[in-house]
Protein backbone atom coordinates (compact mmCIF):
# COMPACT_ATOMS: atom_id res chain seq x y z
CA UNK A 1 0.00 0.00 0.00
CA UNK A 2 1.59 3.25 -1.07
CA UNK A 3 1.37 6.21 1.22
CA UNK A 4 -0.96 8.89 -0.07
CA UNK A 5 0.80 12.17 -0.59
CA UNK A 6 -0.26 14.92 1.80
CA UNK A 7 -1.12 17.76 -0.57
CA UNK A 8 -4.54 19.17 0.35
CA UNK A 9 -3.71 22.43 -1.45
CA UNK A 10 -3.82 20.52 -4.74
CA UNK A 11 -7.18 18.94 -3.88
CA UNK A 12 -10.08 21.12 -5.04
CA UNK A 13 -12.45 19.39 -2.57
CA UNK A 14 -10.31 19.96 0.51
CA UNK A 15 -11.77 22.47 2.97
CA UNK A 16 -9.18 24.90 4.31
CA UNK A 17 -8.93 25.37 8.09
CA UNK A 18 -7.86 28.98 7.80
CA UNK A 19 -8.74 31.41 5.08
CA UNK A 20 -7.31 34.89 4.72
CA UNK A 21 -9.59 36.92 2.48
CA UNK A 22 -8.21 40.24 1.30
CA UNK A 23 -6.57 40.89 4.67
CA UNK A 24 -4.83 44.22 5.13
CA UNK A 25 -3.28 45.50 8.34
CA UNK A 26 -2.08 49.05 8.76
CA UNK A 27 -0.35 50.64 11.74
CA UNK A 28 -0.89 54.34 11.12
CA UNK A 29 0.66 55.01 7.73
CA UNK A 30 2.60 51.78 7.70
CA UNK A 31 1.07 48.85 5.82
CA UNK A 32 2.19 45.69 7.57
CA UNK A 33 0.02 43.27 5.59
CA UNK A 34 -1.06 44.20 2.09
CA UNK A 35 -4.32 42.64 0.83
CA UNK A 36 -3.46 38.97 1.32
CA UNK A 37 -5.63 36.04 0.33
CA UNK A 38 -4.50 32.48 1.01
CA UNK A 39 -5.56 29.21 2.69
CA UNK A 40 -4.01 26.91 5.27
CA UNK A 41 -5.27 23.33 5.49
CA UNK A 42 -5.82 21.00 8.39
CA UNK A 43 -2.77 19.03 9.59
CA UNK A 44 -0.50 21.32 7.65
CA UNK A 45 2.85 22.53 8.95
CA UNK A 46 2.82 25.97 7.41
CA UNK A 47 5.85 28.23 7.62
CA UNK A 48 5.83 32.00 7.24
CA UNK A 49 9.36 32.90 6.21
CA UNK A 50 10.87 36.30 5.69
CA UNK A 51 13.26 38.93 7.00
CA UNK A 52 12.31 40.93 10.09
CA UNK A 53 9.68 43.54 9.36
CA UNK A 54 8.13 41.61 6.47
CA UNK A 55 4.83 41.20 8.30
CA UNK A 56 5.06 37.54 9.29
CA UNK A 57 4.63 38.21 13.01
CA UNK A 58 1.66 40.51 12.35
CA UNK A 59 0.06 37.71 10.36
CA UNK A 60 0.45 35.38 13.30
CA UNK A 61 -0.76 37.91 15.88
CA UNK A 62 -3.90 38.42 13.81
CA UNK A 63 -4.53 34.67 13.97
CA UNK A 64 -4.01 34.66 17.74
CA UNK A 65 -6.29 37.66 18.16
CA UNK A 66 -3.77 40.21 19.44
CA UNK A 67 -4.21 42.34 16.32
CA UNK A 68 -7.34 42.87 14.26
CA UNK A 69 -7.21 43.18 10.45
CA UNK A 70 -7.82 46.69 9.13
CA UNK A 71 -9.59 45.25 6.10
CA UNK A 72 -10.69 41.78 5.02
CA UNK A 73 -11.65 38.73 7.03
CA UNK A 74 -9.92 35.72 8.53
CA UNK A 75 -11.97 32.53 8.70
CA UNK A 76 -11.21 29.61 11.02
CA UNK A 77 -13.14 26.51 10.03
CA UNK A 78 -15.40 28.69 7.90
CA UNK A 79 -16.17 31.10 10.77
CA UNK A 80 -15.10 34.75 10.91
CA UNK A 81 -12.84 35.09 13.94
CA UNK A 82 -12.77 38.89 14.12
CA UNK A 83 -15.33 39.16 16.96
CA UNK A 84 -13.74 36.38 19.04
CA UNK A 85 -11.26 37.67 21.67
CA UNK A 86 -7.93 35.83 22.05
CA UNK A 87 -9.02 34.06 25.23
CA UNK A 88 -11.98 32.45 23.43
CA UNK A 89 -10.17 31.27 20.31
CA UNK A 90 -9.37 27.62 19.66
CA UNK A 91 -5.93 28.85 18.71
CA UNK A 92 -2.87 28.72 20.95
CA UNK A 93 0.45 30.34 20.56
CA UNK A 94 3.99 29.51 21.52
CA UNK A 95 5.78 32.78 22.13
CA UNK A 96 9.21 33.67 20.92
CA UNK A 97 10.29 34.49 24.48
CA UNK A 98 8.34 31.38 25.59
CA UNK A 99 6.46 33.65 28.03
CA UNK A 100 6.62 31.00 30.73
CA UNK A 101 5.08 32.27 33.96
CA UNK A 102 8.11 32.65 36.24
CA UNK A 103 6.10 32.27 39.44
CA UNK A 104 4.56 28.92 38.44
CA UNK A 105 6.14 25.45 38.22
CA UNK A 106 6.44 23.56 34.95
CA UNK A 107 3.37 21.53 35.95
CA UNK A 108 1.31 24.64 36.74
CA UNK A 109 2.42 26.35 33.56
CA UNK A 110 1.10 23.44 31.51
CA UNK A 111 -2.08 23.22 33.58
CA UNK A 112 -2.71 26.98 33.34
CA UNK A 113 -4.85 26.90 30.21
CA UNK A 114 -6.68 23.74 31.26
CA UNK A 115 -7.71 25.33 34.56
CA UNK A 116 -9.30 28.17 32.62
CA UNK A 117 -11.60 25.62 30.95
CA UNK A 118 -12.97 24.50 34.33
CA UNK A 119 -11.94 20.91 33.68
CA UNK A 120 -12.07 18.47 36.60
CA UNK A 121 -8.92 18.12 38.69
CA UNK A 122 -8.31 14.56 37.54
CA UNK A 123 -8.78 15.41 33.90
CA UNK A 124 -6.30 18.27 34.25
CA UNK A 125 -3.75 16.04 35.99
CA UNK A 126 -4.12 13.35 33.33
CA UNK A 127 -3.71 15.85 30.50
CA UNK A 128 -0.68 17.49 32.09
CA UNK A 129 0.97 14.09 32.60
CA UNK A 130 0.30 13.27 28.96
CA UNK A 131 1.87 16.52 27.80
CA UNK A 132 4.86 16.04 30.13
CA UNK A 133 5.42 12.60 28.66
CA UNK A 134 5.04 13.85 25.10
CA UNK A 135 7.70 16.50 25.66
CA UNK A 136 9.89 14.28 27.92
CA UNK A 137 9.58 16.67 30.86
CA UNK A 138 8.06 14.36 33.49
CA UNK A 139 11.02 14.62 35.86
CA UNK A 140 11.03 18.44 35.75
CA UNK A 141 7.34 18.91 36.57
CA UNK A 142 7.97 20.52 39.98
CA UNK A 143 10.69 22.88 38.85
CA UNK A 144 10.30 26.58 38.17
CA UNK A 145 11.17 27.96 34.71
CA UNK A 146 14.49 29.43 35.90
CA UNK A 147 15.55 25.98 37.18
CA UNK A 148 15.55 24.29 33.77
CA UNK A 149 17.64 24.72 30.63
CA UNK A 150 16.74 26.67 27.52
CA UNK A 151 15.82 23.56 25.56
CA UNK A 152 13.58 22.33 28.37
CA UNK A 153 11.90 25.73 28.60
CA UNK A 154 11.18 25.54 24.91
CA UNK A 155 9.49 22.17 25.44
CA UNK A 156 7.45 23.50 28.38
CA UNK A 157 6.20 26.32 26.17
CA UNK A 158 5.27 23.81 23.51
CA UNK A 159 3.52 21.51 26.01
CA UNK A 160 1.63 24.44 27.51
CA UNK A 161 0.33 25.64 24.17
CA UNK A 162 -0.57 22.11 23.04
CA UNK A 163 -2.29 21.14 26.29
CA UNK A 164 -5.62 22.62 25.29
CA UNK A 165 -5.55 20.60 22.06
CA UNK A 166 -6.02 23.69 19.89
CA UNK A 167 -7.21 23.42 16.31
CA UNK A 168 -4.31 25.59 15.36
CA UNK A 169 -0.94 26.10 17.03
CA UNK A 170 1.05 29.23 16.28
CA UNK A 171 4.80 29.13 16.82
CA UNK A 172 6.66 32.44 16.85
CA UNK A 173 10.34 31.79 16.13
CA UNK A 174 10.11 28.73 18.40
CA UNK A 175 13.76 27.76 18.11
CA UNK A 176 15.30 31.22 17.90
CA UNK A 177 16.72 31.11 21.43
CA UNK A 178 18.41 27.72 21.07
CA UNK A 179 21.95 27.10 19.89
CA UNK A 180 22.51 25.60 16.47
CA UNK A 181 22.96 21.94 17.49
CA UNK A 182 19.97 21.83 19.80
CA UNK A 183 17.91 23.60 17.15
CA UNK A 184 18.40 20.80 14.63
CA UNK A 185 17.38 18.10 17.08
CA UNK A 186 14.38 20.14 18.17
CA UNK A 187 13.23 20.64 14.59
CA UNK A 188 12.73 16.92 14.19
CA UNK A 189 11.05 16.74 17.57
CA UNK A 190 8.60 19.44 16.52
CA UNK A 191 7.73 17.55 13.32
CA UNK A 192 7.30 14.38 15.29
CA UNK A 193 4.93 16.04 17.79
CA UNK A 194 3.01 17.71 15.01
CA UNK A 195 2.49 14.36 13.35
CA UNK A 196 1.53 12.61 16.60
CA UNK A 197 -1.03 15.22 17.66
CA UNK A 198 -2.35 15.99 14.19
CA UNK A 199 -2.51 19.68 15.05
CA UNK A 200 -2.18 22.30 12.35
CA UNK A 201 1.02 24.26 12.96
CA UNK A 202 1.80 27.73 11.67
CA UNK A 203 5.39 28.68 12.32
CA UNK A 204 7.00 32.07 11.91
CA UNK A 205 10.72 32.07 11.25
CA UNK A 206 13.46 34.03 9.57
CA UNK A 207 15.63 30.94 9.30
CA UNK A 208 15.18 29.46 5.83
CA UNK A 209 16.82 26.17 6.75
CA UNK A 210 14.38 25.73 9.62
CA UNK A 211 11.39 26.49 7.41
CA UNK A 212 12.60 24.07 4.74
CA UNK A 213 13.17 21.31 7.29
CA UNK A 214 9.90 21.39 9.20
CA UNK A 215 7.24 22.77 6.88
CA UNK A 216 4.87 21.09 4.48
CA UNK A 217 4.51 24.44 2.77
CA UNK A 218 6.62 27.57 3.05
CA UNK A 219 5.25 31.05 2.40
CA UNK A 220 8.04 33.48 1.59
CA UNK A 221 7.08 36.99 2.63
CA UNK A 222 8.36 40.40 1.62
CA UNK A 223 6.97 43.82 2.54
CA UNK A 224 3.62 42.58 3.78
CA UNK A 225 2.99 40.19 0.92
CA UNK A 226 3.38 36.47 0.43
CA UNK A 227 5.61 36.26 -2.62
CA UNK A 228 5.36 32.50 -3.03
CA UNK A 229 3.74 29.72 -1.00
CA UNK A 230 4.73 26.20 -1.96
CA UNK A 231 6.45 23.02 -0.82
CA UNK A 232 10.09 23.43 0.23
CA UNK A 233 11.27 21.54 -2.86
CA UNK A 234 9.34 23.71 -5.27
CA UNK A 235 10.36 26.88 -3.46
CA UNK A 236 13.99 25.87 -3.96
CA UNK A 237 13.79 24.34 -7.40
CA UNK A 238 11.13 26.52 -8.96
CA UNK A 239 11.21 29.95 -7.33
CA UNK A 240 8.87 32.37 -9.06
CA UNK A 241 10.83 35.54 -8.38
CA UNK A 242 14.46 36.52 -7.90
CA UNK A 243 13.51 37.58 -4.34
CA UNK A 244 12.56 34.01 -3.44
CA UNK A 245 15.50 32.52 -5.33
CA UNK A 246 17.87 34.87 -3.52
CA UNK A 247 16.25 34.42 -0.08
CA UNK A 248 16.42 30.62 -0.13
CA UNK A 249 19.90 29.20 -0.46
CA UNK A 250 22.81 30.49 -2.49
CA UNK A 251 22.23 31.67 -6.04
CA UNK A 252 23.75 33.54 -8.95
CA UNK A 253 21.33 35.84 -10.76
CA UNK A 254 22.17 36.81 -14.37
CA UNK A 255 20.01 39.45 -16.02
CA UNK A 256 19.52 39.57 -19.80
CA UNK A 257 17.06 39.68 -22.71
CA UNK A 258 14.99 36.67 -23.82
CA UNK A 259 14.65 35.15 -27.25
CA UNK A 260 12.30 32.22 -27.90
CA UNK A 261 14.18 29.01 -28.73
CA UNK A 262 12.34 25.72 -29.02
CA UNK A 263 10.84 24.67 -25.69
CA UNK A 264 12.48 27.50 -23.74
CA UNK A 265 14.36 30.73 -24.16
CA UNK A 266 17.85 31.94 -24.91
CA UNK A 267 19.00 34.77 -22.68
CA UNK A 268 21.61 37.25 -23.88
CA UNK A 269 23.40 38.82 -20.95
CA UNK A 270 26.54 40.34 -22.48
CA UNK A 271 27.78 41.67 -25.79
CA UNK A 272 29.52 38.92 -27.77
CA UNK A 273 28.93 36.13 -25.24
CA UNK A 274 26.97 33.02 -26.15
CA UNK A 275 23.41 33.16 -24.74
CA UNK A 276 22.31 31.01 -21.82
CA UNK A 277 19.61 28.50 -22.64
CA UNK A 278 16.85 27.68 -20.18
CA UNK A 279 14.20 25.05 -20.83
CA UNK A 280 11.70 26.87 -18.58
CA UNK A 281 8.56 27.82 -20.42
CA UNK A 282 7.23 31.04 -18.95
CA UNK A 283 5.31 33.71 -20.77
CA UNK A 284 7.90 36.13 -22.15
CA UNK A 285 7.76 38.36 -25.22
CA UNK A 286 10.69 38.72 -27.60
CA UNK A 287 13.39 40.93 -26.08
CA UNK A 288 11.85 41.08 -22.59
CA UNK A 289 14.20 41.60 -19.66
CA UNK A 290 14.43 38.44 -17.60
CA UNK A 291 16.66 36.78 -15.02
CA UNK A 292 18.47 33.47 -14.86
CA UNK A 293 18.84 31.94 -11.39
CA UNK A 294 21.65 29.42 -11.08
CA UNK A 295 22.26 27.33 -7.96
CA UNK A 296 26.01 26.97 -7.40
CA UNK A 297 25.79 23.21 -6.78
CA UNK A 298 24.22 22.74 -10.21
CA UNK A 299 27.15 24.43 -11.97
CA UNK A 300 29.98 22.10 -12.92
CA UNK A 301 33.53 23.34 -13.18
CA UNK A 302 36.10 21.81 -15.53
CA UNK A 303 39.38 22.59 -17.24
CA UNK A 304 38.16 21.66 -20.73
CA UNK A 305 34.91 22.53 -22.44
CA UNK A 306 32.55 19.64 -21.59
CA UNK A 307 30.96 17.65 -24.42
CA UNK A 308 27.26 17.81 -25.19
CA UNK A 309 26.37 20.75 -22.97
CA UNK A 310 24.48 23.62 -24.52
CA UNK A 311 25.32 25.89 -21.57
CA UNK A 312 29.05 26.29 -21.17
CA UNK A 313 30.95 29.50 -20.48
CA UNK A 314 34.57 30.25 -19.93
CA UNK A 315 35.82 32.35 -17.01
CA UNK A 316 38.58 33.07 -14.53
CA UNK A 317 38.60 32.03 -10.85
CA UNK A 318 38.68 35.15 -8.70
CA UNK A 319 37.96 33.76 -5.26
CA UNK A 320 37.68 30.39 -3.55
CA UNK A 321 35.65 29.93 -0.38
CA UNK A 322 36.77 26.75 1.34
CA UNK A 323 34.05 25.36 3.61
CA UNK A 324 35.61 22.01 4.43
CA UNK A 325 33.17 19.66 2.77
CA UNK A 326 32.52 22.07 -0.08
CA UNK A 327 34.35 24.74 -1.99
CA UNK A 328 32.64 27.61 -3.72
CA UNK A 329 34.44 29.14 -6.69
CA UNK A 330 33.68 32.70 -7.73
CA UNK A 331 34.27 32.79 -11.45
CA UNK A 332 34.30 35.94 -13.56
CA UNK A 333 32.67 35.44 -16.98
CA UNK A 334 32.05 37.75 -19.94
CA UNK A 335 30.91 41.26 -19.01
CA UNK A 336 32.58 41.09 -15.60
CA UNK A 337 29.74 38.96 -14.15
CA UNK A 338 30.43 36.65 -11.25
CA UNK A 339 29.07 33.12 -11.29
CA UNK A 340 29.32 30.82 -8.28
CA UNK A 341 30.11 27.15 -8.75
CA UNK A 342 30.24 24.64 -5.95
CA UNK A 343 32.06 21.34 -5.79
CA UNK A 344 32.20 18.68 -3.11
CA UNK A 345 35.71 18.28 -1.73
CA UNK A 346 36.04 14.56 -2.18
CA UNK A 347 39.84 14.80 -2.27
CA UNK A 348 42.26 16.45 0.09
CA UNK A 349 42.79 20.17 -0.27
CA UNK A 350 46.39 19.84 -1.46
CA UNK A 351 45.14 17.95 -4.50
CA UNK A 352 42.66 20.57 -5.58
CA UNK A 353 42.38 20.81 -9.36
CA UNK A 354 41.92 24.56 -9.67
CA UNK A 355 43.36 27.59 -8.04
CA UNK A 356 43.19 31.38 -8.21
CA UNK A 357 43.54 32.98 -11.66
CA UNK A 358 42.91 29.66 -13.45
CA UNK A 359 40.80 29.83 -16.58
CA UNK A 360 38.00 27.25 -16.35
CA UNK A 361 34.78 26.16 -18.01
CA UNK A 362 31.42 26.37 -16.23
CA UNK A 363 28.54 24.26 -17.49
CA UNK A 364 25.03 23.28 -16.47
CA UNK A 365 22.01 21.42 -17.82
CA UNK A 366 19.17 23.04 -19.74
CA UNK A 367 16.81 22.70 -16.79
CA UNK A 368 19.27 23.89 -14.14
CA UNK A 369 18.95 27.54 -15.08
CA UNK A 370 15.63 28.82 -13.72
CA UNK A 371 14.09 31.58 -15.82
CA UNK A 372 12.40 34.38 -13.86
CA UNK A 373 10.45 37.40 -14.99
CA UNK A 374 10.99 39.56 -11.92
Amino acid at each position, binding site marked *: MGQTVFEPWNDPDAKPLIQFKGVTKRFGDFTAIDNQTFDIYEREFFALLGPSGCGKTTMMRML*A*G*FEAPTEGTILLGGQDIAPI*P*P*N*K*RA*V*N*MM*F*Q*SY*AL*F*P*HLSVWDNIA*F*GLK*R*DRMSKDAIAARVEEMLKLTRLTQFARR*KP*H*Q*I*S*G*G*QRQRVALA*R*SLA*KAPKLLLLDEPLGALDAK*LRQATQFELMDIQEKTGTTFVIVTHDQEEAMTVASRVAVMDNGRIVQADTPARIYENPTTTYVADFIGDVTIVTGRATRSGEGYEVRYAEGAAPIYSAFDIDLAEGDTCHIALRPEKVAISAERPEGRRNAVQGKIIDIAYLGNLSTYHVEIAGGRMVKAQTANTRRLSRRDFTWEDTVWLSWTDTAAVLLRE
Partner: protein
Amino acid sequence: MRRLTWFNATSLTLGFAFLYLPMLILIIYSFNESKLVTVWAGFSTKWYGELLRDEAFIDAALVTLRVAVVSSTIATVLGTMAALVLVRAGRFPGRTLFSGMIYAPLVMPEVITGLSLLLLFIGIGLDRGILTIILAHTTFSMAFVAVVVSSRLMTFDRSLEEAALDLGCSPFDAFRLVTLPIIAPAVISGWLLAFTLSLDDLVIASFTAGPSATTLPIKIWSSIRLGVSPEINALSTIMIAIVAVGVITASLVTKRASLRQQAEERAAAQQA
Protein backbone atom coordinates in the same frame (compact mmCIF):
# COMPACT_ATOMS: atom_id res chain seq x y z
CA MET B 1 38.55 43.39 39.51
CA ARG B 2 38.35 46.72 41.25
CA ARG B 3 40.68 47.31 44.16
CA LEU B 4 40.12 49.55 47.13
CA THR B 5 42.57 52.45 46.88
CA TRP B 6 43.56 54.58 49.84
CA PHE B 7 41.47 57.44 48.55
CA ASN B 8 38.36 55.33 48.16
CA ALA B 9 38.80 53.64 51.52
CA THR B 10 39.16 57.03 53.22
CA SER B 11 36.17 58.60 51.53
CA LEU B 12 34.00 55.58 52.28
CA THR B 13 35.08 55.49 55.94
CA LEU B 14 34.56 59.21 56.49
CA GLY B 15 31.31 59.20 54.52
CA PHE B 16 29.72 56.36 56.42
CA ALA B 17 31.03 57.70 59.72
CA PHE B 18 29.26 60.96 58.93
CA LEU B 19 26.07 59.08 58.09
CA TYR B 20 26.05 56.82 61.11
CA LEU B 21 27.91 58.57 63.98
CA PRO B 22 25.05 60.95 64.88
CA MET B 23 22.65 58.03 65.12
CA LEU B 24 25.18 55.99 67.07
CA ILE B 25 25.65 58.80 69.60
CA LEU B 26 21.87 59.09 69.91
CA ILE B 27 21.59 55.38 70.65
CA ILE B 28 24.44 55.40 73.20
CA TYR B 29 23.05 58.38 75.09
CA SER B 30 19.59 56.87 75.20
CA PHE B 31 21.07 54.55 77.84
CA ASN B 32 22.35 57.50 79.85
CA GLU B 33 21.35 57.62 83.50
CA SER B 34 21.42 61.42 83.68
CA LYS B 35 18.58 63.73 82.82
CA LEU B 36 21.22 66.05 81.40
CA VAL B 37 21.48 64.54 78.00
CA THR B 38 25.00 65.63 77.18
CA VAL B 39 26.59 64.40 80.37
CA TRP B 40 27.26 60.70 80.70
CA ALA B 41 26.30 59.44 84.14
CA GLY B 42 26.28 55.67 83.73
CA PHE B 43 24.25 53.01 82.00
CA SER B 44 20.52 52.83 82.54
CA THR B 45 17.37 51.82 80.70
CA LYS B 46 15.15 54.01 82.81
CA TRP B 47 14.21 56.34 79.92
CA TYR B 48 12.75 53.40 78.06
CA GLY B 49 10.58 52.71 81.08
CA GLU B 50 9.52 56.33 81.29
CA LEU B 51 8.68 56.30 77.62
CA LEU B 52 6.56 53.17 77.83
CA ARG B 53 4.67 54.58 80.82
CA ASP B 54 3.93 57.81 78.95
CA GLU B 55 0.43 57.28 77.59
CA ALA B 56 0.56 60.28 75.31
CA PHE B 57 3.41 58.64 73.40
CA ILE B 58 1.70 55.28 73.23
CA ASP B 59 -1.51 56.90 71.96
CA ALA B 60 0.36 58.91 69.36
CA ALA B 61 2.18 55.78 68.22
CA LEU B 62 -1.10 53.91 67.81
CA VAL B 63 -2.67 56.78 65.83
CA THR B 64 0.40 56.91 63.61
CA LEU B 65 0.32 53.18 62.96
CA ARG B 66 -3.36 53.24 62.10
CA VAL B 67 -2.93 56.16 59.75
CA ALA B 68 0.11 54.55 58.14
CA VAL B 69 -1.48 51.14 57.59
CA VAL B 70 -4.72 52.49 56.14
CA SER B 71 -3.23 55.27 54.03
CA SER B 72 -0.43 53.13 52.60
CA THR B 73 -2.88 50.39 51.69
CA ILE B 74 -5.24 52.74 49.86
CA ALA B 75 -2.23 54.48 48.30
CA THR B 76 -0.91 51.14 47.06
CA VAL B 77 -4.19 50.28 45.35
CA LEU B 78 -4.60 53.73 43.80
CA GLY B 79 -0.90 54.05 42.98
CA THR B 80 -0.84 50.65 41.25
CA MET B 81 -3.92 51.64 39.26
CA ALA B 82 -2.27 54.92 38.35
CA ALA B 83 0.88 53.08 37.27
CA LEU B 84 -1.17 50.78 35.04
CA VAL B 85 -2.82 53.84 33.51
CA LEU B 86 0.54 55.56 32.95
CA VAL B 87 2.22 52.55 31.36
CA ARG B 88 -0.67 50.77 29.67
CA ALA B 89 -3.62 53.01 28.94
CA GLY B 90 -2.08 54.78 25.95
CA ARG B 91 -3.60 58.10 25.03
CA PHE B 92 -6.75 59.44 26.58
CA PRO B 93 -8.12 62.92 27.07
CA GLY B 94 -6.45 64.56 30.03
CA ARG B 95 -3.46 62.24 30.13
CA THR B 96 -0.96 65.08 30.46
CA LEU B 97 -2.84 66.46 33.45
CA PHE B 98 -3.00 62.98 34.94
CA SER B 99 0.72 62.30 34.73
CA GLY B 100 1.38 65.83 35.96
CA MET B 101 -0.74 65.20 39.04
CA ILE B 102 1.04 61.88 39.62
CA TYR B 103 4.52 63.33 39.52
CA ALA B 104 3.84 66.70 41.16
CA PRO B 105 3.54 65.45 44.75
CA LEU B 106 7.05 64.01 44.46
CA VAL B 107 8.56 67.47 44.20
CA MET B 108 5.93 69.50 46.01
CA PRO B 109 7.11 71.16 49.23
CA GLU B 110 5.25 69.55 52.10
CA VAL B 111 4.21 72.93 53.48
CA ILE B 112 2.24 73.60 50.30
CA THR B 113 0.60 70.16 50.16
CA GLY B 114 -0.34 70.47 53.83
CA LEU B 115 -1.67 74.00 53.51
CA SER B 116 -3.75 73.26 50.42
CA LEU B 117 -5.31 70.13 51.89
CA LEU B 118 -6.12 71.92 55.13
CA LEU B 119 -7.87 74.69 53.22
CA LEU B 120 -9.84 72.07 51.31
CA PHE B 121 -10.93 70.23 54.45
CA ILE B 122 -12.02 73.49 56.07
CA GLY B 123 -13.74 74.57 52.88
CA ILE B 124 -15.88 71.42 52.70
CA GLY B 125 -16.41 71.37 56.43
CA LEU B 126 -14.61 68.12 57.15
CA ASP B 127 -13.55 67.85 60.79
CA ARG B 128 -9.83 67.39 61.17
CA GLY B 129 -8.81 64.09 62.69
CA ILE B 130 -7.52 60.68 61.70
CA LEU B 131 -9.58 60.64 58.51
CA THR B 132 -8.12 63.87 57.17
CA ILE B 133 -4.56 62.71 57.87
CA ILE B 134 -5.30 59.46 56.06
CA LEU B 135 -6.68 61.32 53.03
CA ALA B 136 -3.66 63.61 52.97
CA HIS B 137 -1.10 60.83 53.34
CA THR B 138 -2.80 58.67 50.72
CA THR B 139 -2.69 61.53 48.22
CA PHE B 140 1.00 62.24 48.52
CA SER B 141 2.22 58.68 48.97
CA MET B 142 0.24 57.21 46.04
CA ALA B 143 2.54 59.19 43.77
CA PHE B 144 5.54 57.33 45.19
CA VAL B 145 3.79 53.97 44.77
CA ALA B 146 2.90 54.88 41.18
CA VAL B 147 6.53 55.67 40.38
CA VAL B 148 7.86 52.45 41.91
CA VAL B 149 5.24 50.22 40.27
CA SER B 150 5.34 51.91 36.87
CA SER B 151 9.10 51.49 36.62
CA ARG B 152 8.58 47.76 37.18
CA LEU B 153 5.72 47.63 34.67
CA MET B 154 7.88 49.26 32.02
CA THR B 155 10.23 46.28 31.99
CA PHE B 156 7.38 43.77 32.26
CA ASP B 157 7.28 41.33 29.35
CA ARG B 158 3.88 41.90 27.76
CA SER B 159 3.97 38.50 26.09
CA LEU B 160 3.34 36.93 29.52
CA GLU B 161 -0.05 38.61 29.62
CA GLU B 162 -0.69 37.71 26.01
CA ALA B 163 0.15 34.10 26.82
CA ALA B 164 -2.40 34.16 29.65
CA LEU B 165 -5.05 35.57 27.32
CA ASP B 166 -4.09 33.03 24.68
CA LEU B 167 -4.58 30.24 27.22
CA GLY B 168 -8.10 31.40 27.98
CA CYS B 169 -7.82 34.06 30.72
CA SER B 170 -10.08 37.08 30.77
CA PRO B 171 -8.07 40.34 30.90
CA PHE B 172 -8.85 40.70 34.61
CA ASP B 173 -7.76 37.10 35.33
CA ALA B 174 -4.59 37.67 33.34
CA PHE B 175 -3.81 40.61 35.61
CA ARG B 176 -4.75 38.73 38.78
CA LEU B 177 -2.99 35.45 37.99
CA VAL B 178 0.04 36.58 36.02
CA THR B 179 0.83 40.29 36.18
CA LEU B 180 0.13 40.89 39.85
CA PRO B 181 2.17 37.96 41.23
CA ILE B 182 5.12 38.97 39.07
CA ILE B 183 5.07 42.68 39.95
CA ALA B 184 4.26 41.86 43.60
CA PRO B 185 7.76 42.76 44.89
CA ALA B 186 7.40 46.25 43.40
CA VAL B 187 3.91 46.62 44.83
CA ILE B 188 5.15 45.55 48.24
CA SER B 189 8.07 47.96 48.17
CA GLY B 190 5.62 50.65 47.10
CA TRP B 191 3.51 49.83 50.14
CA LEU B 192 6.56 49.92 52.43
CA LEU B 193 7.60 53.26 51.00
CA ALA B 194 4.12 54.70 51.50
CA PHE B 195 4.04 53.27 55.01
CA THR B 196 7.39 54.80 55.92
CA LEU B 197 6.49 58.17 54.42
CA SER B 198 3.31 58.19 56.47
CA LEU B 199 5.10 57.20 59.69
CA ASP B 200 7.68 59.86 59.08
CA ASP B 201 5.57 62.80 58.06
CA LEU B 202 5.45 65.81 60.34
CA VAL B 203 4.54 68.76 58.15
CA ILE B 204 1.46 67.49 56.30
CA ALA B 205 0.14 65.81 59.43
CA SER B 206 0.55 69.04 61.41
CA PHE B 207 -1.64 70.87 58.91
CA THR B 208 -4.29 68.20 58.55
CA ALA B 209 -4.48 66.78 62.08
CA GLY B 210 -6.92 68.25 64.51
CA PRO B 211 -6.54 68.40 68.25
CA SER B 212 -8.22 65.01 68.48
CA ALA B 213 -5.47 63.17 66.61
CA THR B 214 -1.80 63.57 67.41
CA THR B 215 0.68 61.50 65.47
CA LEU B 216 4.06 60.41 66.79
CA PRO B 217 6.06 62.91 64.69
CA ILE B 218 3.83 65.72 65.97
CA LYS B 219 4.41 64.54 69.52
CA ILE B 220 8.16 64.24 68.99
CA TRP B 221 8.20 67.66 67.40
CA SER B 222 6.54 69.35 70.33
CA SER B 223 9.03 67.72 72.72
CA ILE B 224 12.23 68.44 70.81
CA ARG B 225 11.47 72.05 69.96
CA LEU B 226 12.47 72.74 73.53
CA GLY B 227 15.73 70.85 73.20
CA VAL B 228 17.20 67.37 73.51
CA SER B 229 15.29 65.00 75.76
CA PRO B 230 16.32 61.56 77.02
CA GLU B 231 12.88 60.11 76.36
CA ILE B 232 13.09 61.09 72.71
CA ASN B 233 16.53 59.49 72.56
CA ALA B 234 15.01 56.24 73.77
CA LEU B 235 12.16 56.52 71.30
CA SER B 236 14.56 57.27 68.45
CA THR B 237 16.63 54.24 69.36
CA ILE B 238 13.57 52.00 69.24
CA MET B 239 12.56 53.40 65.85
CA ILE B 240 16.06 53.11 64.42
CA ALA B 241 16.30 49.53 65.67
CA ILE B 242 13.01 48.53 64.04
CA VAL B 243 14.00 50.06 60.72
CA ALA B 244 17.51 48.63 60.83
CA VAL B 245 16.26 45.12 61.56
CA GLY B 246 13.66 45.44 58.80
CA VAL B 247 16.01 46.78 56.16
CA ILE B 248 18.85 44.40 56.97
CA THR B 249 16.53 41.39 56.99
CA ALA B 250 14.95 42.44 53.72
CA SER B 251 18.29 42.93 52.01
CA LEU B 252 19.64 39.62 53.33
CA VAL B 253 16.53 37.80 52.15
CA THR B 254 16.64 39.32 48.67
CA LYS B 255 20.38 38.72 48.44
CA ARG B 256 20.00 35.05 49.36
CA ALA B 257 17.08 34.64 46.98
CA SER B 258 19.03 36.14 44.10
CA LEU B 259 22.11 34.03 44.90
CA ARG B 260 19.96 30.91 44.97
CA GLN B 261 18.31 31.82 41.69
CA GLN B 262 21.72 32.39 40.10
CA ALA B 263 22.95 29.03 41.35
CA GLU B 264 19.86 27.27 40.06
CA GLU B 265 20.13 28.93 36.68
CA ARG B 266 23.75 27.90 36.43
CA ALA B 267 22.87 24.33 37.36
CA ALA B 268 20.03 24.29 34.82
CA ALA B 269 22.33 25.54 32.08
CA GLN B 270 24.92 22.86 32.84
CA GLN B 271 22.58 19.88 32.81
CA ALA B 272 21.27 20.82 29.35
